[in-house]
Structure formats: C-alpha cells, structure tokens
C-alpha cells in the first residue's frame, strides 16, 4: 500500500486508498487465518495487487475450506467481538468477488481510488 501511495498518480483519492487498505487487511487476515485452517501453518497464500489508472485490483488465492456461507453475513451486533471483517470489506469495495474452484479459493477486491 505504501508503494501504491508513493508510485500511484497523485490524484488518487486518499480516503478511498485508506478504505481499500482496510478491505485488504480484512480479507488478508481472513485468508491467513481460515485459508490455512486445515493445512500446515505455512501453506502458501498468493497475493497480487495492481493499479490500472485509478482502479485498484487485488487478488488472494488460498487452499482453505470453502467460505460461501460467510459471504453474505450481515454486520454483527455492536457487542460482538468478531465477525466484522467480510462485512467491512464488502461495504468499502466496489466489488468483492469470491470463487471456489476445486480446492482453491480466489478472492478479488476492486475499488476505484
């Protein structure tokens, strides 16, 4: 993200960059935690980030269990200590894609900055 701030066009909207970083942190933490749940702790996770003009696109690929049932989870009650990650990411992104292909999860995060 630092690279994106430094090398990206100066006209990037700082609030959008900040929100994109929030979504990246949420999906990234999710992938690193759940994406390795059934496998070894060092199971590889693939992460790519690119900026095309003002469109930021990130993908995460992991080999964890499928997570379809978490995708549409609503924002939990204020007293809940967990379960907000995906809801935050969904709210701040222009697009949050998830695909299960065989044993592989692919996440796609898109936001105009």
């Amino acid at each position: 993200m630092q690279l994106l701030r430094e090398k990206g066009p100066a006209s990037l909207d700082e609030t959008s960059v900040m929100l994109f970083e929030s979504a990246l942190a949420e999906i990234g933490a999710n992938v690193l935690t759940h994406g390795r749940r059934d496998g070894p702790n060092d199971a590889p996770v693939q992460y790519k980030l690119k900026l095309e003009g003002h469109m930021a696109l990130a993908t995460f690929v992991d080999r964890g269990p499928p997570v379809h049932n978490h995708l549409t989870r609503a924002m939990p009650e204020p007293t809940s200590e967990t379960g907000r990650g995906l809801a935050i990411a969904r709210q701040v992104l222009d697009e949050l894609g998830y695909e299960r292909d065989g044993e592989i999860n692919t996440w796609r995060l898109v936001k105009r900055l």
Partner: protein
Amino acid sequence: MSLDVQTRQTEAGVTVVVPSGRLDVAGAPALKEAIGDAIKNGPSRLVIDMEGVSFVDSTGLGSVIAALKLVRGNKGDLRLAAPNQQVRVVLELTTLDRVFAYYPTVEDALTDF
C-alpha cells in the same frame, strides 16, 4: 510490527491507555493485556488515547469492544479519544460509533468523567 501500549493515571483517577502503531490482528493482544491490567484493581474509568493508532481492523475493534464489556462489567466506563479518520470511518461503518463515546482529544474525554 506489534503495538506499543503505555498507561498513565490522571490525578482524578482516570486511567489513560495510550496504544501506538497498528491496532490489528498483531496488535490487538497487547491492548487487551493493558486493559486487563488496568481494571484488575476494581471499577475503573478508562480513556483510550487513539491518537497514535494509525490503522484499525476488525480484530483491533474486537479488542476495544472486549475492553468496553470488561470495564462496564466492572461498573466502570470507557471513552475513546482522538481517533484518526480511518478509525472514525471504520467505527461508523460498523455502527460502533453508537456504542462508543468518542472525543476529539484526551482532554475532552477527561472532562466530566
């Protein structure tokens, strides 16, 4: 990078907890520990000075909610001071701004507390 947490006591007996760094998956345990220490001697009034927190994620938020529940369960109360824009946006997205009283500065948070 982990979160650094300092704690100080005001003359009026309010505990000010001052985390600095990223309040995320890696940083949340340090805040939880500091809050746990701060309230173990009975009912407490706590202010978390968020000025040095550059970024918060859902796990970091979870630790603040856990702190709020601990403190209120102990007949005390907790206020947040000086959250940056990213923290404020995440609090609003998650509707936690309805649960937490937050103040622009530590001095404001300490007034009438």
